[in-house]
């Protein structure tokens, strides 16, 4: 029997659902979102997907071009580098360092930054004000420079780089969260909830948080693209993740020497990096657009 909907069903979409619907309407934003999700899946399943080990060298196939060219070999889909290592495996495994690690760093720094920012946004006493100003001062230093300074103190290495970038991202989260919470705090609906006798955690999580979620998500996308750029740039300069590890930035740096002989070893990591950052930025931008459209309508 066919299922017939006899009754008109009431549907009350929440404001966040409405933003999501606006977001879905745009082809570009959905494409970017799907690319980003696919990238994240690749990060998770890269050890299974990679055909070879990243350090395995094939002596008979050094500097082999990608398989779609005349000299290419289907065994090495994206060719090999100057040491005979499979490019595809290196790119796949490299996503763990170039995309997975930034996601982790942004997650850690956002949690720390948002908690501090929320506390500073509510509390306006002198003590917290002093804290706020200190963090504001930190903002005046570009995050990349700050990461450089921290690395200069701690030394290079995977953990130190991750720590440096995580620390350098925190001030922005504090700034954004503090301002957003502070702005909402003086609106009537928060005052009304305060008069209802709500506890402070309830005010923050149930009353204010839904209202500032879009701002926070936007900041998350910005920070994620910054983190990816920073880690790639640091590795490119040789300060970040060191060479045998297949990080996209360090692969770019390596390829500089033989760029005329094997251009694919530079183009492939560069394009991957470009697509990743591009899709993140488009997602963030579309979100902003969807949000302002909803507010204006």
């Amino acid at each position, binding site marked *: 029997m066919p299922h017939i909907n006899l009754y008109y069903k009431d549907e009350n979409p929440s*404001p966040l659902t409405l933003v999501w619907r606006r977001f879905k309407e745009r082809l570009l934003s959905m494409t970017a979102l799907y690319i980003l999700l696919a990238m994240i899946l690749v990060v998770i399943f890269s050890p299974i997907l990679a055909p070879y080990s990243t350090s395995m060298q094939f002596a008979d196939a050094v500097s082999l071009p990608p398989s779609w060219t005349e000299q290419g070999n289907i065994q090495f889909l994206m060719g090999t580098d100057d040491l005979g290592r499979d490019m595809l495996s290196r790119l796949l495994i490299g996503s763990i360092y170039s995309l997975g690690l930034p996601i982790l760093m942004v997650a850690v720094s956002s949690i720390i930054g948002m908690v501090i920012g929320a506390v500073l946004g509510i509390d306006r006493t002198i003590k917290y004000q002093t804290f706020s100003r200190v963090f504001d001062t930190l903002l005046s230093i570009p995050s990349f420079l700050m990461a450089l300074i921290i690395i200069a103190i701690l030394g290079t290495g995977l953990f130190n780089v991750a720590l440096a970038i995580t620390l350098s991202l925190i001030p922005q989260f504090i700034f954004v969260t503090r301002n957003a919470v502070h702005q909402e705090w003086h609106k009537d609906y928060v*005052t*009304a*909830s305060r*008069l*209802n*006798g*709500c506890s402070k955690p309830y005010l923050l999580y149930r*009353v204010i948080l*839904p209202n500032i979620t879009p701002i926070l998500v936007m900041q998350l996308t910005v920070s994620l693209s910054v983190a990816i750029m920073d880690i790639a740039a640091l590795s490119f300069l040789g300060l970040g993740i060191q060479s045998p590890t297949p990080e996209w930035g360090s692969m770019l740096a390596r390829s500089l020497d033989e760029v005329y002989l094997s251009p694919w070893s530079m183009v492939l990591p560069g394009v991957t990096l470009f697509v990743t950052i591009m899709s993140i930025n488009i997602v963030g931008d579309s979100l902003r657009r969807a949000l302002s459209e909803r507010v204006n309508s």
Partner: protein
Amino acid sequence: MSHLLEVKNLGKTYRPRKAWPWSQKSVAIEPISFHIDAGETLAVMGETGSGKSTLAKIIAGVDNPSSGELWLNGQKLHNQHYQQRCHNIRMIFQDSENSLNTHLTLRKQLEEPLKFNTNLTAQERNEKIDIALRRVGMLTEHGEFYPHMLSSGQKQRVCIARAIILEPQIVVADEALVGLDPSVRAQIINLMLDLQQDMGISYILVTHSPQIVKHIADKILILYRGKMIVFDKTDIVLGDDQQPYVHQLLHDHLNKQIKFKSDKAKKIAD
């Protein structure tokens, strides 16, 4: 017998944001004392910046007074003690658009005061919300709505529902009727009067409109630059020989109407 609400020497001073710590504070309200009894409606009037809203906010507990005390039924009200205050004094805000949380359904917003101030179970809370919604002339189905789906009159009704859901003794309305068009305003006033009859609520009404004051207020309190210059029963205030300021506040609309009519007459004559 003690009064329902006694305000004793209540004063508010504040320092402008960018002033030096030692510079003189500006006075929003000079110490004033008055009282209301159960079921009365007190209208607070005054020109812009005379401290009416500050007074309303202090009574509702949004701001703390700089000096003086509030006594409710012979019991002192403590600052920042929201649980104590919101069982007895509730506030309706000027701007109903901004005083509702756009991301929560009405039911969740109405649940807040019950959740934090009573020991009711979820079922009992739902029943109470239904009763409150019906009382202000809305449907129980409206509970699942988000604020952006309502008209401004409906929003104001929800704000009133939120104010009365804990069955308070006093409701403070800070220019709650300003943004509404006349027919909705009349509906809301009638609703407020009905609720007053049913539940014996006292209103503290901050308003500009002399018509509303004459219609529903039992007592009038007039502020002038933070000073209380008149506090008495409505008919006495209206019947008295009035100071020019008071006269202007209470009778300005009449002059305006007369002036408007004479202007019209002139235009026709021309």
